[in-house]
């Protein structure tokens, strides 16, 4: 019996260990490749140490992509959070319509983002798309949705918002339904108004749930590829070439493997740092929410 007890922790750790290796191996290999000038035209490359990273950071294209990525991620996460919470608050007042809407709301999440982007690409087509068709009676039928840099970025964010706002709404709704009722009853007895209750009670207690959604959406938006690529291919010009698209073009389309991987490693570092900051913030907010509840 003794040897079984001794071995048990090691046996139990095996799946986690395998999973860790499965994650670390390709990551480590990718990191290692960035130290070489590995490309299709140079299959037996030389070690160039950190030259690829130097090249990435001195490229104007990188800073353009980084800026577009941040704009996209902040814009999408912010819009989804505001809309998601608003929708959750509306649905929380449980009515028959609310319950029906709740079921419909989840539909965009069931569609692959790339398919959603293609559907929207057709709908936003200036001459035959349904969006301009609907806008025509208001004299707005000629909008070139994805033909201008600003339009392309906003259209991409809008598609992201369409797909993922339900995700935020569902998390926020789950949060709202798990909040204790007693503080709200006490506030009602004291005659507190809706806005005061929302600001002082609902929001502080809901924040941990909202922040979880924000963390997920912000991380995902930083890594966006499918929606933008299907909608604009990164254009017009370089206006929607986010870091993931740049990495894809370099590594796959242009076959500069090391250079492309360097882009993804830089993106990983950005996402990792952002996640650390947000998770740390989440802890603080959870403690504050607990104080409000008590």
């Amino acid at each position, binding site marked *: 019996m003794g040897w079984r007890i001794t071995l048990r922790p090691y046996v139990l750790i095996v799946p986690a260990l395998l999973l860790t290796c499965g994650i670390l191996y390709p990551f480590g290999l990718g990191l290692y490749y960035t130290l070489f000038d590995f490309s299709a035209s140079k299959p037996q490359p030389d070690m160039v140490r950190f030259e690829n990273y130097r090249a990435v950071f001195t490229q104007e294209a990188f800073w353009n992509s980084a800026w577009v990525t941040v704009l996209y991620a902040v814009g999408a996460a912010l819009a989804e959070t505001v809309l998601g919470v608003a929708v959750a608050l509306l649905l929380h007042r449980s009515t028959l319509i609310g319950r029906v809407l709740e079921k419909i709301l989840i539909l965009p999440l069931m569609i692959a983002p790339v398919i959603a982007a293609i559907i929207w690409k057709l709908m936003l087509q200036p001459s035959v798309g349904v969006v301009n068709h609907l806008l025509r009676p208001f004299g707005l039928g000629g909008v070139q949705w994805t033909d201008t840099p600003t339009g392309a970025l906003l259209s991409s964010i809008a598609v992201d918002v369409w797909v993922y706002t339900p995700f935020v709404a569902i998390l926020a709704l789950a949060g709202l339904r798990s909040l204790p009722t007693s503080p709200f009853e006490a506030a009602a007895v004291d005659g507190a108004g809706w806005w005061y209750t929302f600001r002082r009670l609902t929001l502080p207690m809901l924040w941990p749930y909202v922040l979880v959604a924000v963390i997920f959406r912000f991380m995902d938006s930083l890594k966006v590829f499918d929606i933008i690529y299907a909608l604009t291919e990164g*254009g*017009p010009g*370089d206006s929607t070439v986010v870091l993931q698209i740049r990495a894809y073009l370099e590594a796959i389309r242009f076959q500069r493997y090391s250079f492309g991987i360097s882009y993804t490693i830089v993106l990983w570092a950005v996402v990792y740092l952002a996640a650390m900051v947000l998770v740390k913030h989440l802890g603080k907010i959870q403690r504050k929410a607990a104080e409000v509840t008590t």
Partner: protein
Amino acid sequence: MDTHVHDRRRFLALAAGAAAAPLLTACGAGFGGNDDKSDGSAADDVTGSFDWKREKGTTVKALLNKHPYTDALIADLKSFTAKTGIEVEYDVFPEDNYFDKLTVDLSSGRASYDVFMLGAYMVWQYGPPNWLEDLGPWMRNSSATGAEWDQADFFPNLLQADQWSLKAGAPLGQGGQYALPWGWETNVVAYNTEVFRKLGVKPAETFDELTELAGTIKRKAPGAGFDGMYGIAVRGSRSWATIHPGFMTMYARNGLKDFTVDGGKLTPAMNSPEAVAFTEDWARMVKRGGPPSWTSYTWYQCSSDLGAKKAGMLFDADTAAYFQAVKGASPASGKIAFHPGPQGPGGSLATNMWIWSLGMNAKSKKKSASWLFLQWATGKEHLRKSAITHNHIDPVRKSVADDAAYKDKMRHLPGFLETFEKVVDQTKIQFTPQAQFFDATTSWASALQEIYGGKGAKPVLDGLADDLAGKVG
């Protein structure tokens, strides 16, 4: 307890070592290059008299792009199997994903596909890393190649377009034969005869006239009963494919170059004063008479707009118009005519071309059977049948182009044969061969979009040239 801690540490250290081993092995093994590459060609192993049944019972895997030429090939595959006893398994992908699939597959070093479709430009990318079988030794081996294959029957410029020495800037037609021409396209103007007749206009002979004409159609066609029609369909998506058809054809007709080559060194030339002026003119033409949402336009949209009577003209591959022009194919069928397009200064009809070629995976384990397939697919019998009974037009073989049945079939399309004959001698690849072709042309398309969007052509093209100068050597 101490012992446990010690044991656990040792266990974790051993486990970490085991996990690191493959990483270190991978490091030691290098980058999966071509260590097993042999200098001799597998074609040398084929001896004796030529025999179509030599590889009977073998299965060849093909990767194909969704295209009417592919449809014609698939429809005739039974003939190949009957002739050789070789089965062909194939996957067909749409063009948006096709080349990514092929690139990833070839770069993996596996032989998932023995044969595949590619363009001549891909030879510039896939040739240097030795992913493509040099077909020259196969063509020269009379044991491997039947006499009826008749190499001399190919249009020479097409065969040469798939030959390259793998050196940046070196002209085509030298070095290895990395693919075989199978179907090609020349870039011309196709137009809707109905709207031309109603508006009383004629095809443009100069680029200025074309710009004017495109604007006229966009302004006047809706009032003449062509609701929503614009002037000219040209590609505009942020892709290499935007540059090579109409744009590169007109660029070349103006005597302009993508790069200048001096002693093996390539210098970007798309920012020369003449190139800047032409690019501005092209963007102006698109603004005046081009499609709405031009920046997302691929050949599929251009072609279907001509067929749907949304575009008055199309400056693109002749095949893109042909597929809409055939009887019953579109609302505009029967009303589409062909014209060589505007001439350059001095009457130049220099035209860029695209060749759908067939290539063989250098890692294929079934090279002999694959070669039989390539030989059959580019042979007279199959290509003639495909051209006459299917839509595999613009023959790569002179015998098919001259065939009376083929000419009869094409004659009903106004101007098709005349246009083909007028531009065929000046049609060739107008780009400078180099491995960074896709980066250069994708960036070029991006620059074109920016100029269309209102940015100054000079600074945008200077930026493009600066960027490319560092990448293209």
